[in-house]
């Protein structure tokens, strides 16, 4: 055991000193996360900045609801809106000539129509430079009219029931302007879904983990090419110690790099992956799965160049199929196969923890990753040894 840890410490010291691990396992993936977030991060929820908007509106309603509607538009919390009141005949022209985002024409009997249950029509005019802000404003006006329509329905129902006219008006106004009894609020659940930013951070972390653990097997091949392998083999260390040390180095580098990338990604891109303890379990499991692949690579290759190529192919195939760049949809056998991908399981696990999931919730992804590690390690023993093992 002493020889094993001596070799591990020696390898880690060299890897840190030559800086290749730091560059390839931390700097490059963080830079790539940044680029991808700049490219795709705008699609993420809450990340669209709405510009200030101008609304041209007629305000000839004799009652209070017309002004209430315009005040509601002007006080939207998601964007700055300026409402300029003109006569009904000028709304269309003013909207077109001033570059306003939207024109609204309220009928003079707007409040009366709402409170008496009569049909009414509100016209909107889109500005020439209509954009997402105009769409938002139209949606808001539509939603407000929907609420006012509730007042109309209440007035009609009251009339059918024989309520007096003055009671009907009050009832309709209350229904139109009152606070809704039912509200919809957005919450989080362990639904295996990360935000786009979260997916990019988790995916890039998983992808580069497959490269990082490769430093272990590359170290073994470098020993052979430098001539130090025969000297190591001539020392009194137990058989298998050298390959175990290299795998352990890959595992340790993988765990540390993955932990740093997730932490840095969380801070830099505002992503939360949930319970650190459960995330740590996922990191250990995915690092074990990735390291097990290096046993197979070590069996199949004869040189560092071959190992680099093999490791890159495995990383790209498993990384992309696992959703490192974008979610992959599949069905049937292919879907089952993709579910067994440790990178996909890792991202899925992080989705669960991000939604508040605990250890029992991530049992399936953990099982997939540890099962993959076991199968790959056993499979490597069945493969013909082409000379890289020690």
């Amino acid at each position, binding site marked *: 055991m002493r020889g094993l840890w*001596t070799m591990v410490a020696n390898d880690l010291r060299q890897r840190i*000193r030559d800086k290749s691990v730091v560059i390839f396992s931390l700097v490059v993936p963080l830079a790539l996360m940044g680029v991808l977030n700049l490219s795709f991060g705008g699609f993420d929820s809450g990340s669209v900045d709405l510009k200030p908007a101008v609304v041209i509106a007629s305000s000839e309603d004799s009652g209070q609801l017309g002004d209430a509607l315009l005040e509601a538009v002007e006080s939207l919390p998601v964007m700055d809106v300026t409402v300029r009141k003109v006569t009904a005949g000028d709304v269309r022209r003013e909207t077109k000539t001033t570059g306003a985002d939207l024109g609204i024409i309220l009928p003079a009997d707007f409040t009366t129509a709402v409170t008496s249950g009569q049909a009414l029509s509100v016209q909107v005019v889109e500005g020439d430079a209509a954009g997402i802000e105009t769409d938002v404003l139209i949606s808001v006006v539509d939603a407000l009219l929907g609420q006012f329509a509730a007042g109309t329905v209440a007035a009609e129902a009251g009339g059918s029931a024989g309520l007096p006219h003055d009671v009907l008006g009050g009832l309709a106004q209350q229904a139109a302007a009152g606070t809704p009894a039912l509200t919809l609020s957005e919450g989080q659940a362990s639904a295996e879904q990360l935000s786009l930013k979260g997916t990019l951070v988790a995916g890039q972390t998983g992808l580069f983990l497959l490269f990082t653990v490769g430093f272990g097997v590359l170290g073994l091949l470098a020993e052979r090419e*430098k*001539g130090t392998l*025969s*000297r190591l083999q*001539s*020392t*009194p260390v137990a058989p298998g110690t050298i390959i175990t040390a290299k795998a352990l180095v890959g595992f340790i580098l993988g765990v540390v790099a993955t932990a740093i990338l997730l932490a840095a990604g969380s801070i830099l891109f505002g992503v939360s992956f949930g319970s650190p303890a459960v995330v740590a379990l996922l990191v250990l499991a995915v690092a074990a799965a990735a390291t097990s692949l290096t046993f197979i690579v070590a069996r199949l290759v004869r040189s560092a160049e071959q190992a680099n190529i093999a490791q890159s192919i495995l990383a790209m195939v498993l990384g992309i199929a696992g959703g490192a760049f974008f979610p992959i949809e599949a069905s049937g056998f292919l879907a089952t196969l993709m579910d067994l991908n440790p990178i996909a399981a890792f991202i899925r696990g992080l989705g669960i923890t991000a939604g508040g999931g605990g250890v029992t919730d991530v049992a399936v992804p953990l099982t997939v990753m540890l099962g993959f590690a076991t199968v790959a390690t056993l499979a490597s023993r069945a493969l013909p040894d082409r000379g890289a093992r020690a």
Partner: protein
Amino acid sequence: MQRAQVLGVKGLVKRYGDHTVVDDVSFHIGAGETYGLLGPNGAGKTTIISMVSGLIPADTGSIEVAGSAMTPASTRLKSHIGLVPQELAIYPDLTAKENLQFFGRLQGLSGRDLKARTGEVLDLIGLADRAGEQTKKFSGGMKRRLNIGIGLLHRPALLILDEPTVGVDPQSRNSILESVEALATEGMAVLYTTHYMEEAERLCDRIAIIDEGRIQAEGTRGELVELTGGVDRIDLHGSGNTGAAASALRRLPGVKHVDGGASGLTLTVHNGPGLLAPVVAEAGGAGMALSSVEIVRPDLESVFLHLTGKALRD
């Protein structure tokens, strides 16, 4: 004097496919003895060393190190061996001291013993003042010396040096050879492979001449030279009565043959140095005016040529 045997090799055979790389090789080395394997590249020297070090298994035959059988699975026995591979087996990103301490720990050294031994070896190989530098900044000769230092750090009973001076400048080469000479005097058994005849002659108590995987001959330098017939050559350069000198020298005991012309004579003799004085006296007495005299003794190159029919560096 009978030396305690450190390494015993018997009937060693190694084949790769149909090609027999090492063929029935046997030899032994005692404590404090330097044993040379002299042969051209591809003769099988490194394969023998790999089997003796426990890196690869022998097909047949046996290897005993310090009285125990050595195989690739003989983990503990490997601590009796210090291997200095032909390639530079050092880490370029580590300092000289870190390289020594890393391999020292693998050999079981620790604490004060490791620290003290590291200092001793750094002094021995002349790198004490560069101990803290990364070895990638070292010259080829410095790297070679460190390569040897790592092999002897744990005071092995048997030090195996595989062509340690390949690609080394003359100054560093001499320094390496002096270090090896010093080790033998400390009681370490040394197995030294080389294709440089001069190194084998200078360092080795006994030498095995190896070619195509077989030991062609083994013995001390003198014993090997005897295989060629043991004759020296004396070249006499000068003028005067060379004909009379040739006749007089042919009658001198120990002289086997005399050739020559007007500018000089070539004598084939037993024990050239011993005959030099009477030869010079007889030639001068016969009227030959000598300008120079040279004794040419047979060397291991001659022995190799005699045994294999080809030159050592072929």
